[in-house]
């Protein structure tokens, strides 16, 4: 996909979102994700992380403010792989290709390539229930990549996995993101995960969600989640996160 100009891949400008007459979920949120950047959004429950991703994915409209994504529709991954159980792994990927208008013959080879990319070359004919949680999430990643969008939105995609699998998938995501030159907007409530993966981390407050602080992660990849550099920055961010959360205890 050709990049049309040099602007940020995703820009969110002064976005406020509320549902009906309920209080604001997001309030005056502005952030930009540069082309090829990996941005992690961090926040406690109620910070509107998922709502924000829904707005960027064009599943919902902001109450005010604007959202712009370069190069068309971004792809979105959820916490659950949400693969269709009536299809095999390959058919799940092929369906995504089909819905973006890829012809039948090309679908087959592209699906095989995508499955090879997530290292599931031999699992294409397996049904969803025959795959482990980690494998499912990798198929979901292949399905997202099938949309041929250079912006990948991820809504806590590894939260439901065990620690070992999550660690491996972190490494896998970093590898794929580099090889595919993806721009990633990654939402999580796991501080270490954010520091492990992101080029930059944005901390959101809760109820309403506002941008509190930004952290540049100046640690080279490959990183390890248990490394002292990751731990040090995580401690600092956690302190800020806790300060944010404490404010809510006083309110009630």
């Amino acid at each position, binding site marked *: 996909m050709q990049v049309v100009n040099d602007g940020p891949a995703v820009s969110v400008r002064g976005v406020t979102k509320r549902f009906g007459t309920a209080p604001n979920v997001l309030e005056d949120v502005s952030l930009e994700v540069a082309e090829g950047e990996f941005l992690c959004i961090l926040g406690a429950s109620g910070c509107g992380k998922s709502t924000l991703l829904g707005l960027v994915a064009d599943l919902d409209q902001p109450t005010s403010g604007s959202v712009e994504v370069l190069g068309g529709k971004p792809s979105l991954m959820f916490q659950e792989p949400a693969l269709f*159980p*009536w299809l095999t792994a390959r058919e799940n990927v092929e369906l995504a290709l089909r*819905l973006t208008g890829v012809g039948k013959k090309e679908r087959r080879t592209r699906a095989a390539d995508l499955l090879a990319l997530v290292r599931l070359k031999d699992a294409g004919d397996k049904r969803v*229930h025959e795959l482990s949680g980690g*494998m499912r999430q990798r198929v979901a990643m292949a399905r997202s990549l099938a949309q041929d969008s250079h912006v990948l939105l991820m809504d806590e995609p590894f939260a439901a996995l065990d620690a070992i699998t999550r660690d*491996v998938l972190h*490494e896998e995501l970093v590898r794929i993101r580099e090889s595919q030159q993806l721009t990633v907007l990654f939402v999580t409530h796991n501080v270490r995960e954010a520091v492990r993966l992101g080029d930059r981390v944005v901390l959101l407050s809760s109820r309403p969600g506002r941008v509190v602080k930004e952290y540049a992660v100046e640690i080279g990849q490959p990183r390890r989640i248990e490394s002292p550099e990751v731990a040090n920055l995580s401690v600092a961010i956690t302190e800020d996160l806790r300060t944010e959360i404490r404010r809510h205890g006083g309110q009630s």
Partner: protein
Amino acid sequence: MTLQVTDDLAELEAGLDALETQRAQRTSRVRIWWAATWPPLLFVGALIGVWQLVFDAHLQPSYRLPSPGQTLTSLRDEWDSGDLQRAVWNSVRRGGLGFVASLAIGTPLGLLVGRVKPVRRAVGPILSGLQSLPSVAWVPAAVLWFGTSDKTIYFVVLLGAVPSIANGMISGLDQVPPLFLRVGRVLGARGLASARHVLLPAALPGYVGGLRQGWAFSWRSLMAAELISRTPELGLGVGQLLDQSREASDIAGVVAGIFTILVIGIAIELFLFAPLERRVLRRRGLLAATV
């Protein structure tokens, strides 16, 4: 060095995948079939044994309780005269046709009620209510409207099966996880594409359950209609055959008739709907591979 790291990751991942996926144990089809078949066969055999014992004890006069042998003879007589084959063929044909017609009506009706909110509010409760109304109740009305013709029979069958099939479709649609629809939208499926690739396949298990129940209702309704409306111009069905035996006070024939109706119902369930439902569920991992 970098290559080394990547290779390590690939191996690590392959190891994890192997550890976390269960190796499927394949049991042979024959063994599964046998495991599912012998317990009911044994039970039926035992029932027939008890039946014979009760008959031998002369607890009831034989014009009230026939022996298994007398029932079998009665069946053989009906077979030899050709009545049994004709009646079974007529009934199965009627049931099948009625069921197919119910499918053609019930499926779009279920889609409409399931997906269009105002229609659902208006029609939904009545559709569920109709399901609890025994369709025999329609027989007198149908006889007055259509006389004793095939129309009467199909009318009753339709009223029995359509609500089940439509309700099956509706509950199938209701059980579609909202996340699937969301994923469909993210992937770019809208309108018809969404219905075809996401909504309908996701609703299939509920729909198949509805079909199964729809068949049971259509078979029951058919028998009720055949028992009540018996005229020469309608042709012989299993229900009419049963009623003939009643008129002749032929208890062995009556028991043979009940038996025939039961066996046809079980056979269609066993060879058509059970495998269909199993297939749909197994593909989705909703059913253990071994019985």
